């Protein structure tokens, strides 16, 4: 019972992974090993947790992670044309990173701004009511 109690005071593995992800832009192999030791888990187990969640990466990502929502409310407001424009501008498909490691593109599900779609997220910044031109402007500002 005492052991269970103390878990509340331990850093959650998920929180730890967030920290590492924001420090390196991905979860490096060495950190997986550290975590395995800290949490007394097999490495495969830590890897399994990482791979389950779409916001964690085991490979370096671009400096800017571009997330574009294509769930139904944004889709009804023509998110597909935004997507098409961004894909062709960056010459990327979803889950890909540009060679210069500047941009990673993610086509994602609902970002919770459904009344203001289409919606795009650049790292932690949300942009609402975007269209093709606005999306490309935002990308240009990143460069």
């Amino acid at each position, binding site marked *: *019972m005492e052991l*269970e*109690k103390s*878990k*509340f005071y331990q850093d*959650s*593995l*998920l*929180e730890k*992974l*967030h920290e590492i992800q924001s420090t390196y832009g991905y979860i490096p192999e060495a950190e997986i090993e550290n975590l395995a030791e800290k*949490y007394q888990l097999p490495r495969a187990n830590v890897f*399994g*947790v990482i791979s*389950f*969640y*779409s*916001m*964690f990466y085991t490979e370096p990502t671009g400096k800017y992670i571009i*997330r574009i929502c*294509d*769930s*139904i*409310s944004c*889709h*009804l*407001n023509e998110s597909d044309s935004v997507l098409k424009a961004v894909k062709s501008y960056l010459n990327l498909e979803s889950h890909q990173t540009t060679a210069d490691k500047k941009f990673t593109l993610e086509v*994602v*599900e*609902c*970002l*919770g*701004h*459904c*009344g*203001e*779609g289409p919606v795009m*997220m650049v790292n*932690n910044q*949300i942009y609402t009511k975007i269209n093709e031109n606005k999306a490309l402007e935002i990308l240009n500002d990143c460069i």
Partner: protein
Amino acid sequence: MSKEKFYLKGDQLLDISDYNFKSIKNALKLGREKTIQKIKDSELKGRGGAGFPTGIKWEMAANIEAQEKFLVCNGDEGEPGTFKDRYLLEERPLKVLEGIMLAAYAVGADKAYIYIRGEYSKAIDVFSKIIEAAEKEKILNEYLFNSDFKLELKLVRGAGAYVCGDETSLLNSIEGKRGRSRIKPPYPIEKGLYNQPTVVNNVESLCCAAEILNPESEEFSSLGIEGSRGTKLLCLSGDLNKPGLYEVEFGKITLKEIIYELGGGIKTNADLRFVVPGGISTSLIKADSLDFPYSYQEFEERGSSLGSGAVIAVSKKHDLLDLMLNVSRFYMDETCGTCFPCREGNRQINKILKSFKPESNKINAELINDIGNTIRLAARCGLGQSSLNFITSVIQNYGEELRIGGKIYV
């Protein structure tokens, strides 16, 4: 707009020194039993989508003897079309905090988690600051207002997995595991987080609880109609002139008024085809059948559900097959993969829809419905069980238009 209410919605509440915690003070005065009785009397139902009576959940959890109990606030809002919990976390976080404290006090938990989806960076930021301020003001971690109750609260960020909105998946996620659902029973109130009794409540439900215990707004529980009490936050989106967040009283406004008055009607004067009333896990309601009061029971009677309150208006300018594919892709991507029928079923549905050509009229609707029923019966969690509701309801209502052959699902 007179049809709008302002209980959950309202001015931004961010400064803890301006907030008086009336509801929790009231609860501490009433005691645990009477607090739970108030919630039971209010007929509050969970606002996350499943609609389980909150008071009954609290009572069951309160009656369980355990060394340790947990309260978890579910802020993993991911149902497409839903953004009410984000609003509450960003604009009214002190109400959310008070709701968490109330629930924890009522069920006898002294440790609580709030789990907020990782994409909600602003909400995470705002709520982290609220926790910090509450710790500094001794609202958390210390015996509260000279009572025997103190609460510790931690925030855990999700990391991009829709399925963690399911309460058992969410518990696994907090424990640092893959967000896979658990087999029920045992229910979380018996064996939840770290095997301890755990109550999981949605953000909006907790805010409603704070409203119910507010000694200055006693009318909240008498709002609405029998079986659907209080108010509901609605997230209007899709082809509407005035999309956004609205609060309405149950039973006093029709779905038609929600679309045409609150929502301002359909954009570019297009014709409405149907409304998805509670997020994409609910069955659609056709445009000519919207004239009924907004309540749990009215949706149930129509074979649908008010779900999370995500009301999505869809006009006739959209291609039905394209929409079905969009929803199907969502479930194919977001299934956690634990239950075979949900994992493979959703993949097969996507395949069937992708190969569908209206002119050849080759798909058997019966097959889609069979897969849908199998998932409904065999998936562990509510998210899996409801994954085919939208698609089967499109086929049921528009099968002929799509020229899908076979027996139409009833």
